[in-house]
């Protein structure tokens, strides 16, 4: 599998040719430096663009069109990479070898239509569509609280001001109120014209055919784009851990710990941080899982994950409210032990092997293939083979040195325990 990168002027095209898949994936990415306001706009915009287009002016017609194209999958997502906010619009469709001739270009044209030929009249989006999508987004923002695990993490991150990760991922209701069909269209134009654009194609494709489609449709005209540093500003480590809590009506208490990471080297950011987080709480062979769940039965899940480009790490678990202090103490002890090098080689080797496996198996999925090549573009990361070699070289000393840069910054608990024990029988 190799990737051909072509500078198309206003955008980069990445063609990844492989016969491995029956389907083809095309992913169009727009990114720029994040602002709080923009998160809401982008969330709404992806809903509006996927709802209808100029040729298919309502949801029903657009969905039927995707079904006629052998159930083409039309997907949009919003992701943050450090200081960047990224809107992705993508399709996955069956290669015409398995359907009928002409379907490849028809499918790509539908995506182009959705992105570059939206349902716009008189310099604004269709009012009804915008209003419907506003309601949908409003509902989604309100429903975040249904997922207590996610909600607790959001609540904690919100308390950190002035960092890209402190903005709610779905946006804010207060900002949403002021969005309308005209200002959203203005925003859309800035996205098309000012954002950095990367397009990925994975599958068994006719290069010339697809390039011609992009040349015809990709309606981005601005060639001067402002790049930005992806790495978020570090947190100042807290001398005294910040303790926060909130009460909700729930059975379980959610515990979330935010750790600051400071002065990371390039190697730590790209490799060691991942190994550390995997070893600590990546899977059921991790230290946290073994000590907190298996040895002490405090929880069903406990995980840690690192955001190296945000300079933070999170640990989270669902526990019984009255075991909170014991669990926190146990986790602190575990972090201290790692700093002192008190962990066995198996912990480290297993974590490395798990990461290496996931890089290898990622080659079986179009999504992860795209992520790998996009990471190259975003942070200059190396290809799968080289990364595997780098991970193999990580030593215990590397992990211990990194662990000294991990400091608990804030501990947040979303406290439940108010509801009566249910017994349905």
């Amino acid at each position, binding site marked *: 599998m190799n990737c051909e990168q072509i500078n198309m002027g206003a955008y980069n095209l990445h063609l990844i040719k*492989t*016969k*491995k898949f*029956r*389907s083809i994936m095309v992913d169009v990415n727009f990114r720029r430096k994040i602002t709080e306001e923009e998160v809401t706009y982008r969330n709404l915009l992806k809903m509006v663009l996927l709802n209808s287009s100029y040729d298919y002016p*309502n*949801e*029903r017609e657009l*969905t*039927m069109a995707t*079904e*006629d194209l*052998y*159930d083409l*999958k039309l997907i949009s997502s919003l992701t943050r990479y450090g200081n960047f906010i990224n809107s992705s619009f993508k399709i996955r469709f*069956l290669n015409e070898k*398995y*359907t009928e001739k002409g379907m490849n270009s028809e499918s790509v044209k539908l995506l182009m239509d959705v992105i570059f030929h939206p349902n716009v009249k008189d310099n604004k989006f269709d009012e009804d569509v915008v209003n*419907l999508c506003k*309601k*949908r987004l409003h*509902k989604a923002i*309100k*429903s975040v609280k*249904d997922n*207590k695990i996610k909600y607790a993490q959001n609540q904690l991150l919100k308390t950190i001001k002035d960092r890209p990760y402190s903005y709610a991922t779905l946006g804010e209701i207060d900002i949403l109120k002021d969005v309308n069909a005209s200002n959203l269209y203005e925003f859309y134009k800035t996205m098309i014209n000012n954002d950095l654009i990367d397009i990925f194609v994975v599958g068994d494709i006719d290069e010339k055919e697809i390039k011609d489609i992009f040349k015809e449709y990709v309606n981005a005209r601005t060639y001067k784009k402002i790049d930005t540093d992806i790495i978020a500003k570090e947190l100042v480590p807290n001398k005294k851990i910040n303790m926060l809590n909130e009460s*909700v*009506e*729930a*059975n*379980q208490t959610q515990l979330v710990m935010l750790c600051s990471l400071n002065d990371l080297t390039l190697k730590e950011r790209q490799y060691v941080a991942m190994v550390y987080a995997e070893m600590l709480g990546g*899977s*059921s*062979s991790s230290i946290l*899982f073994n000590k907190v*769940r298996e040895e002490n*039965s*405090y*929880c*069903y*899940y406990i995980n840690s994950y690192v955001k190296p480009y945000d300079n933070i790490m999170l640990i989270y678990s*669902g*526990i*019984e409210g009255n075991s909170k202090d014991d669990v926190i103490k146990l986790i602190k002890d575990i972090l201290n032990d790692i700093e002192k090098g008190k962990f066995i080689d*198996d912990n480290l*080797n*297993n974590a490395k*092997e*798990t990461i290496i*496996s*996931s890089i*290898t*198996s990622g*080659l*079986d*999925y179009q999504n992860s293939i795209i992520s790998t090549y996009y990471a190259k573009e975003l942070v200059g990361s190396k290809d799968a083979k080289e990364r595997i070699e780098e991970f193999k070289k990580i030593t215990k000393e590397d992990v211990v040195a990194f662990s000294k840069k991990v400091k608990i910054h804030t501990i947040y608990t979303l406290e439940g325990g108010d509801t009566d*024990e*249910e017994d*349905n*029988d």
Partner: protein
Amino acid sequence: MKKITINHVGETIYYEKLDNGMDVYLCSKEDYHNNYVTLTSKFGSVYHTFIPYGEKKEYHLPNGVAHFLEHKLFAQKEGPQPSEFFAMSGAIDNAFTTFKNTSYLFNGPNNLKENILFLLKYVQEPYFTKENVESEKGIIVQEIHMCDDQPEDRLAEAIRKTTLHNNPFRESIIGTAKEVNSVTKDMLYKCYNTFYHPSNMFLVVTGNFDIDDIMEAIKDDQRNKKFRDSGKIVLKEFKEPDKVCKKEEIINMDTEIPKVAYNIKIPIDKLGLSKREIQIYLNILFNVLFDDTSIAHEELVKDKIITSPIAVETLNCDTHFVVSLYNETKEYEKLISKIKDVLKNIKISDKDIERKKRVIKSNELFAYENIEFINDIIIDNVVYEGEIEDNMIGIIDSVNKEKMDEIIDKIDFTNASLVVVKKK
């Protein structure tokens, strides 16, 4: 070794029944890197009343035992614990319990043969002690609390409780804290001895590997292990009335927007088709009537009753299908009355049917791109039908308007329950 070629999809599945009764299914795909392996016992939450192996009297389990057993099979008397063993080669292990089966699994690109043998070893060598059973209770209670805090899980439980009377699909897979606390080591051994004999289990390997080599290793391993005779599994029979159990249930919990499901109970034996065919017809019918390509959707959105599309879920409970129409909206009363209206006067065209057939067929092709989905399809086929369906595309192709009209005539669309989860 039998070769099963999946028509139109072009994939091949290899099958063999071992001497000890275990079924093995293998599917290898060129160019892939990862492997996905599942070992399944045809024991899930619905088998709660049975005659234990070697006994004569019927035995009734509290809810949650199949799931508890799943947790505890990971315990090893000595040597590395499963997660540690699999992690050594970078593989990830897991397990899940459903209504009719419990599956133990791992996935990873390396060390396939040794990992399969270890999977067989740990599942075939139970080690339950009073202490390790006790220490698991706190963990499972936390899992129950996690589920109880999720409105969708509460809704799903209530859908089954309101539609079913005696069918064991009615009962919770995970159980309540009280039930879990009543589980004993003996209970787990009774279940294990009755349901985990190789003749009630099957192994599925999907990924990229040498078929003969892997099959030989599995056969070799099993040939050298001693098992008792298979025994006959005797389950308690039940009669399930066709009518729903309860017309309405409101659950109060902390959730911003009410969640609502309208659940139609459909007897299987009256439709004169196989379960697989019924499932396809119901899927097409209800999606044409209610998904985002439907007229009803367009009208409901226009009237500001819903904002997002109605989701259609089908549950196959052996005796009945329960089709649930799900949405989140404050205007759920208006939504239900609209659903009832649509169902009173069903209109479905040839064109609609053909479009949905194309959708289902395409998704069969999409699924075979992913080794995890292929594994899932095989498990589903074996658990629900006892064999691999090699002509799914042909079955979908045979769907026609005439038969659809016949089915519509036979279904009582008013035989339904309403479940709402909302704030007090």
